[in-house]
């Protein structure tokens, strides 16, 4: 295999890996890898993108097959990386960037355009604004600050130590339920406790997994589609478990005290 072909293969696989890690749809991953590989003169190329791995096989001119497999074990939504990989692959296909530069660009791809605290503040404000969107009052917004801060801190810690996503969902759901019901019981104001809890779990709910999973299934990518749907169901279950146990605990404790 020539050096340049090798570089094309490496770039294509890297692009695919970044896309799967950023939770892109399966067809987008396969299309991107195939478009990049088509620029090099391979006899044939086959790409299979699953949610948990990327499989690429090319046949080089002298009929020797080359296979590259990437195992992908953790994924989180990153729209910036999806958009950037999309740009780079367009540049490669249109020929405005040569493959070496493109590979460098992908290797040095930033993980975010924003400072870490910007994202935290945005997540915090998102929870407060969603209270208003779901017809909460301004008192509700103020009363939701403790729970919103908790959710933000937990998601921050969990992404820092790269813990299992389900653990973060369970803990957040549990603490939110405890904090909000405690505030509702202890502070003599009328609070829409359900709206507060719902607002806090909105950043956790598996919107992306759901949307992309169904898009995959409708395009015939059953394996990755069902994997994502299962992920969505699992996340929803763990949030529900967390909230459920939190509510039960507070009920028991309050019944015991009062």
């Amino acid at each position, binding site marked *: 295999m020539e050096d340049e072909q090798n570089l094309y293969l490496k770039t294509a696989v890297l692009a695919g890996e970044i896309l799967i890690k950023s939770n*892109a*749809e399966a067809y*987008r991953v396969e299309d991107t890898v195939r478009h990049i590989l088509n620029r090099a003169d391979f006899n044939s190329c086959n790409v299979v993108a699953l949610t948990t791995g990327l499989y690429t096989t090319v046949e080089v001119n002298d009929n020797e097959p080359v296979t590259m497999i990437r195992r992908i074990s953790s994924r989180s*939504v*990153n*729209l*910036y*990386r*999806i*958009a*950037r990989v*999309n*740009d780079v692959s367009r540049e490669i296909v249109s020929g405005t960037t040569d493959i070496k530069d493109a590979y460098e660009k992908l290797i040095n791809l930033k*993980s*975010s*355009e*924003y400072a870490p605290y*910007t*994202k935290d503040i*945005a*997540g915090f*404000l*998102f929870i407060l*604004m*969603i209270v*208003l*969107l*779901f017809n909460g009052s301004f008192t509700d917004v103020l009363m939701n600050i403790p729970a919103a801060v908790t959710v933000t801190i937990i998601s921050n810690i969990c992404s820092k130590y790269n813990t299992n996503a389900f653990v973060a969902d369970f803990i957040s759901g549990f603490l939110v339920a405890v904090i909000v019901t405690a505030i509702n019981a202890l502070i003599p104001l009328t609070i829409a406790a*359900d709206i507060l*809890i*719902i607002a806090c*779990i*909105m*950043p956790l*709910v*598996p*919107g*992306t997994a*759901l*949307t*992309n999973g*169904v*898009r995959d299934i*409708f395009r015939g990518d059953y394996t990755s589609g069902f994997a994502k749907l299962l992920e969505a169901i699992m996340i*929803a279950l763990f*949030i*529900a478990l967390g*909230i*459920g146990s939190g*509510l*039960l605990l507070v*009920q028991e404790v309050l019944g015991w005290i009062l």
Partner: protein
Amino acid sequence: MDIIIQTLTATVVVYLIAIVLDAPKKTLPYAALTGAAGWFVYLLAGSESSVVFSTFIASCVIAFLAHVFSRVSEAPTTVFLISALYPFVPGTSVYRAVYSLIGNDLEAFKFYALQSILISGAIATAVFAIDSIFIIHGKIKKYHSVEEQRANTI
């Protein structure tokens, strides 16, 4: 008046969630606009129909705008779609299902569990329908351009 305030709130909400999901800076205004349009339609349709139906209509509008803006700003459709659909994800129904399960109210549990499945289904079907329209449109355009080329070479 209420509708306008709610729509403005939805704009801010989608703008914020787009930042949380790392949407590229240049796409933020488009994403917020998509979300605002979706919520506006949701409120308009919501006054006289079920949640599932109004979610479906709103998701159709969002999916359509996502395709339009992805062509305008040269960013993938997903960027707009995922951010703008976030307020519609059935967090409310899931919570109420869990809440009624704990209160041992099985009828309410069944109702809210089914509602959350139906809402996700409505979002999915809407996205699929609009996706298909754009894919078919692309295929028709490609077919005609190939035909034209063939006619020109002859």
